[in-house]
């Protein structure tokens, strides 16, 4: 019989990553709570704390720290589960990577707290933070690379030992996500190392602003897929097992991930549609490439609902929708992820609107965008991670996810959903009216601006109520995590949590899908087509550079 649990070194490693993720999560959501109250003038911050410091912390802690640490904890457990125990070198390099990532995180947190880096997580030049903020960012990325390469090393060893076999789907998807992450980070590493750091430390007088923005967004869009793909791993590989089914199609699942690598990178200009310095043609070309992600997204939606229907019918569901009622709704590990998927339907549709070239002008940098990412990364991704947490943490700590905790978990996901519906709907509507994002208390003395907040949905109260419910929900989740880590009853053999991995029939999966050289090559060709000419133009026809400004 296979060991129920993965070895102790991996469990320690993964738990450390998850622990840091949840520390960042609770501080980040607290910052979010403060924001909704400052925005409606119900709260005054003390003089030593500034709204934009809190906003920077909220974005960095939740979008970068929580997601990244969680993802690596998930990957480390899953790779050990599906490919076998890590060797001492893999363990060592994972720890080295984790320590470097944490060092970068601490450095950046300190810079934000002491007010040296209120530049938000997009850190647009020529706003200039303390040089160590950029060093921290670089360390963060390098640390994730070290952990990534350690996992890739483990995968390569497995492949050498299993010539001619398809790798387990979980491992394949992990490697695909890592490939995407490493290629994406090249942009941010380039701008941080060669532009920001020399400039912030005074070795260079000026910075090429447009180039730095473009390198940032070369990274910024695939970054969202770096959050999303691990959630998709849970959807494709974990969820079918939770409901007792199997993976719908191994080859389609792998193809979807390959398409995400290809079409999530050469598309960054769709974040820069309303700015000068990029010719319309290149903006449009990248819009076309952006729209290609519709294909793997629809493939994923199809696979999910196919798995649900097949399993529902096996369980005796009749008629057009009878299967739906047969799904295991009382299992919070499944229900949480199902709700997460539902949120992604409007989330994805909103994304298509945002990327639609001229339509972008209507919503660019309005509160709509804030609403958008709260129902993409903020719920589909985050709530999938919650759903994974409910079994992964007790699996790693060998404790029991008790009935009482399961009930709390239901309350947690229900409150998160309600809070998010209220808050993000208000944000979407306000954005359509033209209310800007990223502002503290908005006291524009103009009838249009005053009218923004008079609607039933679009008022500050709705947003504040939503935000408060969300923080309550976040606290509940952290309580559950603490219980599952230290206080829940210890499991014995009869009730030990398992790592749910669905079977995936890879006998007919084409070999080419696992030929990384081919796909990385195609990815670079697409990137070269989309970026070479406009970026050369930015470098060759650069205006005089900008010196640094500290405007906060």
């Amino acid at each position, binding site marked *: 019989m296979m060991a129920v649990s993965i070895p102790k070194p991996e469990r320690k490693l993964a738990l450390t990553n998850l622990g840091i993720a949840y520390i960042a999560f609770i501080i980040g959501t607290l910052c979010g709570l403060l924001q909704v109250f400052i925005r409606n003038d119900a709260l005054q911050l003390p003089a030593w704390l500034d709204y934009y410091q809190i906003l920077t912390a909220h974005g960095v802690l939740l979008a970068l720290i929580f997601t990244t640490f969680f993802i690596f904890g998930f990957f480390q457990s899953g790779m050990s589960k599906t490919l076998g125990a890590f060797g001492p070198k893999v363990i060592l390099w994972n720890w080295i990577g984790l320590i470097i990532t944490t060092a970068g995180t601490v450095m950046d947190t300190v810079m934000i707290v002491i007010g040296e880096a209120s530049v938000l997580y997009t850190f647009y030049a020529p706003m200039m933070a303390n040089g160590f903020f950029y060093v921290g960012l670089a360390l963060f990325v390098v640390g994730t690379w070290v952990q990534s390469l350690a996992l890739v090393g483990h995968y390569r060893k497995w492949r050498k030992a299993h010539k001619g076999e398809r790798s387990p789907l979980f491992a394949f998807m992990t490697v695909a996500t890592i490939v995407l992450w490493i290629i994406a980070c090249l942009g941010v590493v380039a701008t941080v190392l060669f532009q920001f750091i020399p400039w912030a430390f005074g070795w260079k007088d000026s910075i090429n602003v447009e180039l730095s923005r473009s390198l940032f967004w070369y990274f910024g869009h695939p970054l969202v897929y770096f959050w999303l793909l691990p959630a998709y791993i849970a959807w494709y590989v974990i969820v079918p097992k939770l409901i007792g089914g199997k993976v719908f199609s191994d080859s389609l699942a792998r193809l979807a991930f390959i398409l995400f690598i290809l079409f999530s990178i050469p598309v960054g200009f769709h974040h820069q549609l309303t*700015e000068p*310095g990029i010719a319309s043609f290149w903006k449009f070309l990248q819009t076309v490439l952006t729209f*290609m992600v519709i294909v793997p997204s629809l493939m994923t939606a199809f696979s999910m609902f196919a798995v649900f229907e097949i399993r529902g019918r096996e369980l005796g569901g009749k008629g057009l929708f009878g299967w739906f009622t047969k799904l295991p709704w009382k299992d919070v590990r499944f229900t949480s992820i199902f709700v997460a998927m539902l949120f992604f339907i409007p989330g994805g549709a909103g994304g298509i609107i945002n990327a639609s070239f001229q339509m972008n002008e209507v919503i660019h940098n309005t509160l709509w965008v804030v609403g958008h990412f709260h129902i993409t990364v903020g719920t589909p991704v985050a709530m999938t991670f919650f759903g994974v947490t409910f079994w992964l943490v007790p699996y790693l700590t060998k404790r029991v996810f008790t009935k009482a905790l399961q009930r709390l978990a239901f309350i947690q996901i229900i409150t998160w959903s309600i809070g998010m519906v209220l808050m993000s709907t208000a944000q979407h509507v306000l954005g359509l009216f033209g209310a800007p994002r990223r502002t503290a208390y908005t006291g524009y003395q103009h009838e249009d601006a005053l009218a923004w907040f008079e609607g039933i949905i679009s008022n500050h109260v709705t947003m504040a109520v939503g935000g408060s419910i969300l923080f309550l929900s976040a606290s509940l989740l952290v309580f559950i995590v603490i219980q599952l880590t230290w206080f829940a009853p210890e499991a014995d053999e009869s009730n030990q949590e398992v790592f749910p991995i669905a079977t995936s029939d890879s006998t007919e999966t084409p070999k080419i899908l696992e030929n990384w050289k081919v796909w990385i090559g195609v990815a670079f060709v697409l990137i070269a087509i989309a970026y070479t000419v406009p970026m050369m133009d930015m470098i060759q026809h650069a205006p005089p550079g900008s010196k640094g400004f500290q*405007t906060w």
Partner: protein
Amino acid sequence: MHLHKYEKIWLTFGFAALIIFLSVVGVSAFHQGHTPSGGLQKVDPENLEATPPFDDPGVHEKEDGSYEVVVIAEAFGYTPSEIQVQAGAEVTFKVTSKDVTHSFSIVDTNVNMMVVPGQVNEKTHTFEEPGTYLIVCNEYCGGGHHFMSTEIEVVE
């Protein structure tokens, strides 16, 4: 690779949607000229006083009744502080920044322009309705970001 029949139908629908979306966007952009704001002209952000058209920021009415409005953004305001144009006239905005990245976004219109130092952003718009329009900076630009706004007066 095996594809289920329903999946083929579903993906055909997906591809069709993709083509329709892109055609609509493409025709609107290149046939009807609805492109987002942009421009390729460069300026020296530290020497705007000596660089046309930014040596003379303000509202310039042309002989054919259209306007060119030249705007400089800086933390946390816009020059000129007062803008007045006629309803129904074509207005071309030219904006740049003296310091950090800002935006020039007119509420209730499709004028939503990023203002990047070193670059000149351009957008043409016709105000059909007279009134006072609110202009806000919607790109975070520092501690006074939420105070950065102005108005444009559109008269009959």
